[in-house]
């Protein structure tokens, strides 16, 4: 399974790099779709069908919207000249990247090796979810019972996003 995952990850990296450098914006959007759909197969290989269903649907809908946006506006990339302000921005981004890498290395030293986590909460969830909530699907039992606040927050985020889109896109206003 590791070999298949490595091939898929390499494929995703190639797709992401191509999406950055493609001349045509439509092919860049399609190449970004490679990343999403490969992630679906990764989720299926790692035995997470709940996530795979959500990912395949959301990826399809966002791809449709992105293709519609590209076909409506322009297919060519805008040329931007590099001035001192942008050199400053790029160097700032690199400094933050180095700082983040430093702290990530520091943090991963403290963790257990890959695949041997000490999951105290998770073992309790895995053992007792079916008995406590009566839900045969473990993921839904955790999402809607133990972690109900998380689900409520996600629903509120979608609600806020829809209201924000309605507010920003309305140019003429209600009559």
């Amino acid at each position, binding site marked *: 399974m590791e070999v298949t995952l490595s091939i898929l990850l390499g494929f995703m990296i190639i797709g992401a790099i191509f999406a950055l450098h493609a001349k045509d914006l439509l092919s860049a959007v399609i190449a970004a779709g490679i990343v999403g759909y490969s992630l679906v197969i990764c989720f299926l290989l790692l035995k997470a*069908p*709940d996530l795979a*269903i*959500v990912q395949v*649907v*959301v990826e*399809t*809908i966002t791809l*449709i*919207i992105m293709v*519609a946006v590209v076909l*409506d506006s322009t297919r060519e990339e805008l040329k931007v000249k590099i001035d001192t302000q942008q050199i400053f921005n790029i160097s700032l981004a690199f400094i933050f990247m180095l700082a983040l890498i430093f702290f990530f290395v520091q943090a991963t030293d403290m963790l257990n090796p890959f695949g041997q986590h000490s999951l105290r909460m998770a073992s309790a969830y895995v053992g007792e979810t*079916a008995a406590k*909530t*009566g*839900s*045969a*699907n473990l*993921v*839904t*039992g955790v*999402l*809607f*019972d133990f972690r*109900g*606040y998380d*689900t*409520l927050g*996600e*629903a*509120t985020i*979608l*609600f806020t*996003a*829809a209201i924000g*889109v*309605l507010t920003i*896109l*309305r*140019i*003429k206003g209600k009559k």
Partner: protein
Amino acid sequence: MSLIVKKVAQLITGFIFLYGIYIIVHGHLTPGGGFAGGAIVAGAYILQTLAFGRDTLLLKKKETNTSLSESISILIALMLAGAGFFIGTKVFFNNYLPTGKIGDLVSAGTIPLYNIFIGIEVAAALLTIFLALLIYKEEIEE
């Protein structure tokens, strides 16, 4: 769109819609749940709109309806969660209904109710965003 696209969309939309409802209702038994099923239901509407143009849904009216159903469903989910505070122990998101037998369609207490309302909310939110992009673009062009 061409005749082939219209015919295939006509044949397939109902099945996609039913599959989304199946995913929502069986969320506590099989993989999936409110989020996945809601996105699939929204996808059925989006397919219909893309194939037949905006006239099929009478969009100017429907857009306010989707926004309304989204607001109402998240309010109901909040009230279900708040009811747990008053019934039995004082815990928000308390599972106060009887859990029933594991594996039955009607089981797991309040989880299926949350699934259904979160599903309605997600479907309405995604559809609202899509329709807003469509309607306001045409308003700008006019």
